[in-house]
């Protein structure tokens, strides 16, 4: 394969944004720039699907690897994919066009700049999921802060500035320690190439500190309790498309990082710190679910539910069981789709009523039935109803957890009940009940683009709920390989 397909995936959105930058947007409707952005992201989506088809599911090696000299004699620009990263890439390329379609209704000012930010963001996010060098990974991981800061800060709600700053500084603070760790790894092992590091392993005496440094970055990004407080703020203030990107993809970077780096590079430390992760995950699941129950702002409720769901993810990853890790990956993909859909659902009613408060609504089922049905599907998927993708992930995670630690699994299972409680209660209060607020009667049901977006999210949620086989086939070999390598490294040391 000579064509650098991965670099093409990374670069294409950036090139598209360059086009946007030089295009003129004088007319009111900005149709041209929207189509340019949409076209770019759709091409990227097709390219990633094509990549999935080309992808060899039985090989445990990294595929489509590109290795170019970059920082001379020190860091190579190395990208490549395995079964785990391909799914996240497709999630990214799938969500981005939907975000771009959704701006029709939500973004009123500086549309062109917004689309540029979204496309640049896409480039960086794809870069995160396929970089095979720590420095390259760090570069993409951090670079994503810039567009996200602007998305929250320029197009956000009333407290946008506070939220944007909080988001930026929290994440930066977490990440600088990771930079120290990455440079230290270079001096310890002589390379930052992930594949080589997998083979070499890292000296046991350094692992704990390095693991903690990586953890500080990923924990903020995941976000894990107690450093999750930036997330509700950022979510609430971000515009709908921003919340979608944040929930669907940005949070997954950390989960991916845990699998790829924490488990892969520091098995001994991971073994040591598993209890820590368990405790934090369980607290996140129970505690933030309880907080979610109390929320009056819909977006905030979904934001807290994201923290809880990511608690399941971290729990699953550190079970180091086949089921647990596979479950986490599927949970991340599923949460990417479901949380995106839920934020879009909130966005739909917000655009009409300009309120995110749950008390504003109630009894809208008769007024906007299509919306109510779709919202129900996503709510059910979020609580993990069998037949939706949410079920499979959660079920596998709990299965893995039961194998590893009975107590943790029991407590985490309670979280499933709480999860059902807050999301159903939300649904009940918003959709059913008495129609008190008379303004709601003027609400229009979903327009074409909204309908299209929500349907295209509902299809994979239900499809993978009944038939998760393609996902399993893709990740199985890579996860197997990861676990066997993990155990091997554990024995060797």
């Amino acid at each position: 394969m000579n064509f650098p397909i991965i670099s093409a995936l990374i670069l294409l959105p950036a090139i598209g944004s360059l086009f946007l930058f030089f295009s003129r947007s004088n007319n009111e409707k900005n149709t041209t720039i929207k189509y340019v952005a949409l076209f770019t992201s759709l091409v990227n989506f097709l390219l990633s699907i094509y990549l999935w088809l080309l992808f060899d599911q039985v090989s445990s090696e990294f595929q489509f690897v590109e290795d170019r000299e970059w920082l001379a004699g020190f860091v190579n620009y190395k990208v490549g994919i395995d079964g785990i990263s391909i799914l996240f890439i497709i999630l990214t390329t799938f969500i981005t066009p939907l975000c771009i379609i959704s701006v029709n209704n939500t973004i009123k000012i500086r549309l062109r700049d917004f689309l540029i930010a979204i496309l640049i963001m896409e480039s960086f996010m794809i870069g995160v999921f396929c970089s095979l060098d720590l420095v390259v990974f760090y570069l993409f991981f951090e670079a994503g802060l810039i567009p996200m800061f602007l998305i929250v800060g320029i197009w956000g709600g009333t407290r946008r500035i506070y939220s944007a700053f909080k988001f930026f500084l929290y994440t930066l603070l977490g990440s600088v320690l990771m930079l120290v760790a990455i440079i230290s790894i270079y001096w310890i092992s002589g390379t930052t190439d992930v594949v080589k590091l997998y083979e070499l392993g890292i000296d046991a005496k350094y692992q704990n500190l390095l693991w903690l440094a990586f953890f500080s970055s990923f924990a903020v990004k995941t976000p894990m309790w107690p450093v999750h407080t930036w997330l509700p703020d950022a979510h609430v203030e971000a515009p709908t498309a921003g919340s979608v990107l944040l929930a669907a993809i940005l949070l997954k970077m950390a989960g991916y990082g845990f699998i790829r780096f924490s488990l892969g590079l520091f098995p001994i430390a991971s073994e040591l710190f598993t209890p820590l992760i368990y405790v934090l995950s369980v607290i996140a699941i129970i505690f933030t679910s309880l907080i979610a129950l109390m929320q009056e702002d819909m977006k905030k409720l979904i934001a807290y539910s994201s923290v809880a769901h990511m608690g399941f993810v971290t729990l699953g990853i550190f079970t180091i069981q086949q089921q647990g890790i596979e479950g986490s990956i599927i949970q991340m993909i599923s949460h990417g789709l479901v949380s995106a859909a839920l934020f879009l659902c909130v966005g739909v009613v917000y655009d009409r009523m300009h309120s995110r408060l749950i008390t504003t609504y109630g009894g809208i089922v008769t007024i906007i039935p299509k919306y109510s049905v779709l919202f129900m599907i996503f709510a059910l998927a979020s609580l993990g109803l069998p037949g939706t993708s949410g079920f499979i992930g959660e079920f596998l995670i709990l299965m893995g957890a039961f194998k590893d630690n009975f107590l943790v699994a029991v407590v985490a299972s309670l979280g499933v009940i709480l999860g059902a409680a807050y999301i159903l209660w939300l649904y009940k209060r918003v959709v059913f009940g008495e129609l008190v607020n008379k303004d709601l009667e003027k609400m229009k049901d979903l327009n074409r683009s909204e309908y299209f977006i929500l349907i295209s999210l509902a299809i994979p949620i239900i499809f993978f709920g009944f038939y998760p086989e393609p996902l399993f086939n893709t990740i199985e070999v890579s996860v197997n390989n990861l676990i066997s390598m993990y155990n091997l490294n554990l024995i060797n040391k």
Partner: protein
Amino acid sequence: MENLHFVLPEIFLSLSIMFLLILGVFKKDSSILIHNISLIVLLISAVIIFNEIIEIEKIYLFNGSIVIDYLSSFMKIITLLAAFIVLAISKSYLKIIKILKIEYPILILSSILGMMIMISSNDLIVFYMGLELQSLALYVLATFNRNNLKSSEAGLKYFVLSALSSGLLLYGCSLIYGFSGSTNFDTIAVQLNSNEYALTFGIVFILVGLAFKISAVPFHMWAPDVYEGSPTTVTLFFTMVPKIAALTVFIRFLYVPFLNLIDQWQMILVFLSIASMLFGAIAAIGQTNIKRLIAYSSIGHIGYALAGLASSSNDGIQSSIMYITIYVIMNLGLFSCLLMMKRNNEYYENLEDLSGISKHHPLLSLSLLIILFSLAGIPPLAGFFAKFYIFKAVIEQSMYFLAIVGLLSTVVAAFYYLRIIKIIYFDPEKEKYDQNHSPWLKFSLTFSTILILFYFIFPSQLVEIVSRINII
């Protein structure tokens, strides 16, 4: 005599200064002409170095008191080019605030001459001579807008404090001479007796003097006032050019004669570095004047450059040379933006004047955005790589404390850079600024923005050039 052509740029520069002085005296209204000639002089000097001298690995001249090597050639080229751009964008600014006089380019040229002597010096006396030549010119430059109270204050303050530091420095020189019997760096290195505590005192005094010149904490007090009071283009000159020269002297002075005394001065350097990084980051938060803010930010940046030096390896030296180079480029862009904030022949320099400019000036604010994120050290911009190499060198020497403090202060510093971005992008807009900028200004802004933005595509180029500089 045959050695003279190695110092051709210096000779050429000094002859030009004399010629321009005479020209200025005898020809009326010649300020624009002199300005243009000075530009050409700077360019020619850079070209001479680039063509003739850059290949020289190491050569001593004049009884070992001058050294020409990669380090000096590289730093001289950076100095000359930076001065060139400063001078080029000064013209329209000086014209508008009505101080376009013949002295300005001549003073810049003389301070550049002083710096070139400093950069090449391998002897305490030569070094001091160069230092004084540049300082005297800088005092006058600081007070160049003499009708402005703040400018006069700046010049006076700079003069008094700088004279004090020169005194300390000279005292250090005499101590070192007294206890080693020579002023030549190499001879000192040979005759060094590390048991002499007076030598350590000498080093400390000289370090204080140098730290003053690069405004490292705790010798930074003059910087905010002087930067704020001086005319903006002079401030631009202050923030970059003298620091390049002083940093070179730092490198040469510490690593040639006193490499063996590293235990004595490394701690001082680490302290200077940590104090500058932290103080620069924290003190900048409360500022409302952009020039003052840049003063604090430049204090912080010098801290990072010193962190590279403190790591006592060739990697560290190279990384801090790279840092200062990238810093110069970023600063050029930042000041170009500042010089574009002009309305009805009046310049604005407060943070609130930036409020909402992204509405009317999308390109200007995009450049500022890129430059500020780069100054904050966010990848994939050039500023990140600068910091990255510094920390790579620092961690190589297992100086984790320095690295972690440095990185944490980047987070603090990120806050005030973000605050500027917030003002530009999130705050309500104000009146438009003028759009008719001089082509040089546009050039320097575009040039620095593009370099910063696309640095990541070819990050090895600068490394390769700098990697030829091996001092230890």
